[in-house]
């Protein structure tokens, strides 16, 4: 009873994770702040201003179109733009009511809407034809940050967009691989210190066998994600090369086991090689990427999914996903281990 309970729990958690991953909608965001190359009459300022278009992703500007506010912000200076009209739920036309002297060229664009909350497009506006005066200031408009009135949703991330759901697969798969290889590492140390029987050798090989599959799945999901966000299936990056090398090193472990016939010798050699493989894994996947530039999140000064990126909706799915995958991985490991032991018993039969 106790042994089946945690397995059922693991499956239940994974069912919850998959359902949430596929069903929770993505939150709103800003895609682009586009120059329309036309000049329109500003009713507020009574002069001609350039026309721009704000393009949103999953926004609801057609509800309460009058309460949409658009701001630009740079170096602590905030300016309100005039919203000329709201075209549809994701398109709005604004007039660029800014003075000729500006403190900066590059501006963040913000929209305020009671349904979507406050949205930010970093460096969405670049003005090269204005006079730059670092001291140019004007009275700040009233700005109240809205929080979103939408239900549970995943946060919008530029460039990642809908693929943020891959977070529930890619990251937990690698975590599970780490856990399994850790089990293999401990088993190999035990095998080396107590070489009399093959119990720990069975543990090591079972965990590595399952762990390689998790590593391959982690590579595949990562490759898919790279295709979407970076534009290529594979890029020459320390984190990616390290991951591939790790999987290859562990494949070498399986090759080594095939090459030795004597059981006790095989156990000892495989255990020694496994210690090497684990040290390489730790160095390549956890030490190296922190020392070098990498595209991969969380490495080389590149923000990962830290407290800033992981909002409550992501957390509610991501943490169960990690636990669920780890439980499934442990279960697969235990089944493989039992297969090894049964096979050993069968071989011993007369």
């Amino acid at each position: 009873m106790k042994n089946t309970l945690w397995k059922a729990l693991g499956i239940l958690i994974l069912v919850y994770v998959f359902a949430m991953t596929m069903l929770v909608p993505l939150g709103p965001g800003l895609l682009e702040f586009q120059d329309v190359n036309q000049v329109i009459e500003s009713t507020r300022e009574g002069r001609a201003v350039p026309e721009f278009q704000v393009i949103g992703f999953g926004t609801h500007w057609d509800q309460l179109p009058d309460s949409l506010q658009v701001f630009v912000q740079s170096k602590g200076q905030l300016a309100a733009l005039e919203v000329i009209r709201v075209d549809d739920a994701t398109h709005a036309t604004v007039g660029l009511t800014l003075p000729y002297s500006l403190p900066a060229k590059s501006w963040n664009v913000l929209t305020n809407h009671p349904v979507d909350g406050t949205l930010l497009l970093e460096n969405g506006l670049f003005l090269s034809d204005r006079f730059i005066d670092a001291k140019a200031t004007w009275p700040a408009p009233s700005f109240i940050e809205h929080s979103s009135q939408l239900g549970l949703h995943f946060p919008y991330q530029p460039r990642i967009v809908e693929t943020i759901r891959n977070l529930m697969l890619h990251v937990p798969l690698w975590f599970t691989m780490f856990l399994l290889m850790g089990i293999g590492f401990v088993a190999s140390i035990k095998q080396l210190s107590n070489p009399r029987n093959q119990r720990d050798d069975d543990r090591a090989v079972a965990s590595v066998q399952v762990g390689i599959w998790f590593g391959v799945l982690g590579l595949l999901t990562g490759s898919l994600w790279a295709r979407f966000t970076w534009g290529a299936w594979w890029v020459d990056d320390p984190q990616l090369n390290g991951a591939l090398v790790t999987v290859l090193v562990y494949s070498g472990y399986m090759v080594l086991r095939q090459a030795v016939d004597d059981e006790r010798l095989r156990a000892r050699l495989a255990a020694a090689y496994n210690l090497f493989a684990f040290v390489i894994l730790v160095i390549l996947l956890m030490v190296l990427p922190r020392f070098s530039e990498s595209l991969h999140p969380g490495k080389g000064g590149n923000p990962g999914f830290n407290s800033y990126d992981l909002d409550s909706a992501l957390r509610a799915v991501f943490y169960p996903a990690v636990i669920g995958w780890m439980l499934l991985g442990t279960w697969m490991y235990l089944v493989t281990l039992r297969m090894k032991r049964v096979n050993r018993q069968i071989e011993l039969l007369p």
Partner: protein
Amino acid sequence: MQGLAFLLGLESTAIAFAALLSVLSAISSRAGAGFGLTAVLGLPLIIPIVLISTRYGTDILNGILWIDTAHHLLFLGALTGGIGTLGFILFPYLWRD
């Protein structure tokens, strides 16, 4: 200083190769499988050392100041230290009967 940094990287790479290939040759000789096994096991383990040391070496030869590329040397040192220490500890276990 620049030459010394290059020499350090060279030595570090050489020691890493020596330690790694000694242990792998020992494993394959104990396995009785000849040098084919050394090649198969060694290839993935050699790749990171080659990648890092070539990157470090080209950086130094291109005239980049050694302190600006020292993180490669640091990592090379970590790799060498890890492989060397582990090889030193594990070597007797390989030959025990």
